[in-house]
């Protein structure tokens, strides 16, 4: 009996092992250079979006007709637009719009997708109905469905989020469902069921915790896709209403003067590209880390 551990010792051993495992994951993540680069890129963009309003002397709405379409220079870092507004502060504000939308959509679709995916994996009858609905929704190309929903709801930030949630939830639900189906068949779940554990206990305490990795990875890609689709929607005039600065609106303004003011297209464009690239690298790194079995070339 002496070599048996007390509960306390067991718990401390457990937490120590957990910590070691976490350290290993962190170490592996940092050894993946591309993923590291992606996360640095994202951190810089987030920081810029948060702190730079305190440093720029211009607001994104300040009109100055005398200084219309000034090329990048000392006073206006990225130049001015066709109303004489400072492009740098508009891009930084656009970053905030994009990040809010991307983050909100990633969180809401994860929660909804998790609920739908878990329950349809557990209840066969529900599965048939829910998956047919998601098949139907996934038959629409993402941008097109988003445009159509925005046409009905009207251009507003909240509506962009709603439209993107409708567009992306089915694919999250599918991912969660397929991961949950695998977990559900495992012996320990069967054992729990035999012991009389309730369905919701098994679903939320045992299955849900095991589908988190693929869910988090997918949420990162949805973040990136949301930024792209928001930009496209606003560029087409169906997203964030003018004069609010969003990257898509900036590109729309830029297109009207593309032959005179290259900076109005180039800088917002680079902003979109860098954030999407950063998120994709970050997501790829996360996937390699959390889920080594999936092929790298999937995305």
């Amino acid at each position: 009996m002496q070599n048996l551990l007390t509960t306390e010792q067991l718990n401390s051993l457990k937490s120590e092992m957990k910590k070691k495992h976490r350290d290993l994951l962190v170490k592996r993540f940092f050894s993946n250079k591309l993923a590291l680069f992606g996360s640095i890129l994202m951190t810089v963009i987030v920081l810029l979006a948060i702190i730079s309003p305190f440093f720029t002397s211009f607001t994104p709405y300040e009109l100055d007709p005398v200084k219309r379409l000034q090329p990048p220079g000392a006073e206006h870092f990225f130049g001015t637009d066709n109303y004489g507004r400072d492009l740098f502060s508009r891009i930084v504000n656009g970053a905030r719009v994009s990040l809010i939308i991307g983050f909100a959509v990633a969180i809401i679709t994860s929660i909804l997708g998790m609920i739908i995916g878990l329950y349809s994996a557990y209840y066969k009858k529900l599965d048939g109905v829910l998956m047919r609905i998601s098949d139907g929704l996934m038959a629409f190309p993402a941008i097109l469905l988003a445009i159509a929903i925005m046409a009905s709801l009207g251009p507003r930030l909240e509506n962009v989020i709603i439209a993107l949630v409708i567009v992306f939830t089915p694919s999250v639900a599918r991912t969660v469902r397929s991961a949950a189906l695998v977990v559900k068949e495992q012996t320990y779940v069967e054992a729990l069921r035999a012991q009389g554990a309730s369905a919701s206990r098994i679903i939320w305490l045992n299955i849900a915790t095991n589908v988190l990795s693929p869910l988090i990875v997918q949420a990162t890609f949805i973040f990136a896709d949301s930024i792209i689709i928001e930009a496209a929607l606003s560029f087409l005039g169906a997203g964030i209403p003018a004069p609010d600065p969003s990257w898509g609106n900036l590109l729309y303004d830029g297109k009207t003067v593309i032959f005179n003011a290259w900076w109005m297209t180039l800088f917002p464009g680079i902003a979109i590209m860098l954030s999407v690239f950063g998120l994709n690298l970050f997501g790829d790194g996360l996937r390699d880390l959390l889920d080594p079995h999936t092929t790298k070339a999937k995305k």
Partner: protein
Amino acid sequence: MKGYILRRLLSLIPVLFVVAVVVFLLMHITPGDPAAVILGPEASPDEIAELRENLGLNRPVTEQFVSWFGGVLQGDLGNSIFMKQPVLQAFFEHLGPTLSLAIMAQILAIVVAIPLGILAAKFRGSFLDQTFMGISLLGISIPSFLLGLFLILLVGVELKWLPVAGYKPLNDGLWNHIKYLILPAIALGSMQAALIARMTRSSMLDVLNANYIKTARSKGVKESFIVIKHTLRNAFIPILTIIGHTFGTLVAGAAVVETVFNIPGIGQLIINSVERRDFAVIQGSVLLIAVSYVLINLVIDLLYGVIDPRVRLGRK
């Protein structure tokens, strides 16, 4: 094979039904009265009431759906309020440019991506491989409309090599037709090319290590024959899947790219209708695109059966 085709056809019914319900609901999720939204703030209450009556908005929702759906099944997608013509007619008038653009982008993507993917797989880990894959990751990160804008800046404004806006139909001569579509097709096709190249590389890699390839090599079969005949054929299923699944994205992307290059296709039809709140046109176009996406994927699923007999026999 017959049973396989029949099963696939039956499985389409619920999907198409859901598609129809979603498209129908598009008009009904508008906050407020759709008729008032369509006519704008200057409309008189009488005009609104008349339009409500014409659109059948006073009837119960289920009744509206049944009559709308019945019309759709007979090819009646309603009428455009602003263009004063049937939606189907407006759609087909705008289809040419979009289809031309999507096909050209697809061809461009396949012609560039498959050889690159094969080379990358053949010389795995080399400088060539890493360069291709790095570029393709960048290609996935640039949305097509943005690449279009960049191309306009570079090729149109700086180099002045190609026209940056407009469209010439095929009747104006083949070169004229293609000339206006080169930049849009590059913009639209590059993400597609990146996806196909990555998929080609990874599925080629899976097959290149298989035992039967080793056997073929040890028999002394020529390497080029092994790559093209033995490997590519078996690697083709995942490649085909990507091509099929991204076709919808391609058509939708074409809609956005058209706006960048002022091409009068489906995209412009939809965007103009969004501005005018011409719901019938939006509903009809979205429905037609979703249905064709579903049908294209059906064709591709059936092609699997032709390429790989295991598909039609094995799956239940």
